[in-house]
């Protein structure tokens, strides 16, 4: 009971903070919101390869919706999310987006889970002028140039997931400042877009911090045994091994490298940032560092409340994807609150919501949250390291510049 009361207090506090200076307009619009439904859609990968992430996002989204609706909704309007599974398939993802949008009711979309699908879905949402908020995609070309090679920025595409273009350089910078490594080897899955993108970022970054990349070792994500690429990497005797893959690969590389006697540092990307990877790597992963959008043990109230409520509802620990899903709903709720929605002109409401999203400035489990002018995340980067027993420790937090 106490926890619920606390949850309500925080949600109210958030709501008040969000209303900010516009209390007078807030009062006048609340009547028109009363009893209405703010319909959202989410396209997540609940099955297939992306199902390591989609269900977490969904939990975060559902928890936030439940909390907000329980505490008075958005100026009295109820949030509703229609979540669909794209089976980690880009083709189905685009089909779903089209179906959801053309049904004509929803004000904004969340997702999709995988970058591969995002490059298909985001331009579609842009062409229909429906705001879309990416909740887990970290690749290049998500925002603002969703229509690349066209350089006209996409007006309706946002993301609340920290891009690798921010996370990886921050991680390298922090490690370089404290340990002064001089050599590195990059291991990259060249047939995987996520890993290739991350690898490119590493290649473009290391030079600035005095690290010489001795070799870039490309392998296929279908590689069964990583002994071969790891042997090649270890024989170069680098200070750092960079790993930009995701799923089971980073842990397999770390375990193999330690077996072969590598004693240097592992640095990586978003692929490190789940407890699953830390658990799979076990002792071999101890000390591996990455830049993360979120850290579970952060004690500021908006995170402590989220973690607490999540554990209560799902009897398990949240992860970064749950936090980003939760934050996405807070962001949309805040924008909806200030957007003076009419509830009878869907197209107009979508544009009003979009405009309001640009000025979001709220507290989330990710920390204080704003969008940059290019609709990307502006948040603190939490550099974390694996603790060797399935969890993480905070190394340093880096505020956005």
């Amino acid at each position, binding site marked *: 009971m106490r926890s619920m009361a606390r949850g309500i207090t925080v949600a109210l506090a958030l709501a008040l903070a969000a209303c900010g200076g516009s209390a007078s307009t807030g009062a006048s619009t609340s009547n028109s919101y009363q009893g209405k439904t703010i319909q959202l859609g989410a396209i997540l990968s609940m099955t*297939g390869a992306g199902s390591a992430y989609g269900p977490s996002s969904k939990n975060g989204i559902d928890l936030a919706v439940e909390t907000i609706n329980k505490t008075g909704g958005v100026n009295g309007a109820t949030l509703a999310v229609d979540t669909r599974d794209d089976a980690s398939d880009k083709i189905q993802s685009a089909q779903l987006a089209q179906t959801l949008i053309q049904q004509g009711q929803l004000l904004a979309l969340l997702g999709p889970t995988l970058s591969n699908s995002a490059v298909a879905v985001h331009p579609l949402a842009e062409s229909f002028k429906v705001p879309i908020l990416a909740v887990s995609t970290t690749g290049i070309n998500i925002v603002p140039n969703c229509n690349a090679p066209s350089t006209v920025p996409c007006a309706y595409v946002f993301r609340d997931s920290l891009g690798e273009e921010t996370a990886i350089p921050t991680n390298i910078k922090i490690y370089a400042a404290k340990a002064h490594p001089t050599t590195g080897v990059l291991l990259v899955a060249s047939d995987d877009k996520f890993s290739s993108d991350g690898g490119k970022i590493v290649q473009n970054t290391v030079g600035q911090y005095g690290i010489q990349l001795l070799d870039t070792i490309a392998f*296929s994500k279908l590689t069964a045994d990583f002994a071969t690429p790891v*042997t*090649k990497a270890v024989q170069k005797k680098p200070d750092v091994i960079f790993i930009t893959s995701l799923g*089971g690969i980073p842990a397999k590389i770390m375990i193999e490298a330690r077996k072969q006697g590598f004693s240097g540092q592992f640095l990586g990307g978003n692929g490190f940032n789940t407890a699953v990877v830390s658990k799979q790597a076990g002792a071999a992963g101890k000390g591996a560092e990455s830049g993360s959008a979120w850290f579970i043990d952060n004690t500021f109230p908006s995170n402590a409340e989220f973690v607490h409520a999540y554990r209560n509802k799902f009897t398990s620990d949240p992860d970064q994807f749950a936090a980003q899903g939760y934050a996405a709903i807070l962001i949309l709720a805040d924008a909806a609150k200030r957007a003076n929605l009419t509830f009878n002109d869907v197209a107009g409401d979508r544009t009003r919501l979009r405009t309001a999203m640009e000025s979001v400035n709220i507290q989330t489990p990710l920390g204080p949250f704003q969008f940059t002018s290019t609709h990307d995340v502006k948040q603190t980067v939490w550099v974390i390291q694996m603790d060797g027993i399935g969890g993480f420790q905070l190394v340093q937090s880096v505020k956005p510049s």
Partner: protein
Amino acid sequence: MAQQVVNAIFIGSIYALFAVGYTLVFGVLDVLNLAHSAVFMLGAVITYSLVALHGMPFLPAAVIAVFVCGLLGLLIEFVALRPLRRRNAPPISALISTIGLALIFVAIVEQATPGTLFGWLWHDGANSVSFPSGTVPNPTYHVGGLTIEGTKLGILITSVVLMLVLGYVVRFTQVGRALRAVAENRRAAALLGINVDRIFASTLFVSSALGGLAGLLFGLAISDISPYIGRDQVELKGLAVIVLGGMGSIPGAVLGGYLLGLIEVLAFVRFGSNVEAGVAFAALFLVLIVRPQGLFGARLRERL
């Protein structure tokens, strides 16, 4: 380079063990069993489940898992293969029905999290896990600058012994003779009083038990157990192996497994990049064009 050859021999034994089961079914039933990779995955998943979720020691867990995989082989025979034979469907149909079964097996594991229908089997959905450290002792030997792991050595020995046993059974026992008779000509074998259906069922049992064993050894040595290890990491490689060795030939599959391991590693070292996966398939392509009967001599060409 020497270390890379050690790596090649090890991964070669996993490929070989997987491919032996694959080729056995092809040799006897004339069917490509595409559910074999899903059984490989389940071998690892079931062992992990017994060890990590139900607190069983590794060895009994492995034995149970191998047996259950054998039973899954029977399931494949009774659900996906026998009904098609009864209806005289073209062999290509069996390809589709086994794909259907593979889809089901993978989806069951992929969707299993605590509290769901299959939560007793698997907790980690689409994620990868590894055996808890200390599941089996893993001493590491350093011999002349080479790193050799105890588990990998054990796996090498296990697979070689098993493949020799299988080779012996097929070649020199009563059952083996029946098996080869069915493989040569099932109608003639039936006339000779051999119960063909029973041979098919036992073939599937043995093949799937081997597949499951390969899977659990893979999971143990490579520290990667997920719903996708079969489909992504060994299915196509297994196909390449049985082609290299000659379709349906057990010794061919064994040699083919080691050969593929070697080709991959050499390609990786020589070209130093992602060409390696392409090379395996280019080799496959070339072998088929130049020697469709497989790389090895006439003695190995005969089935099984």
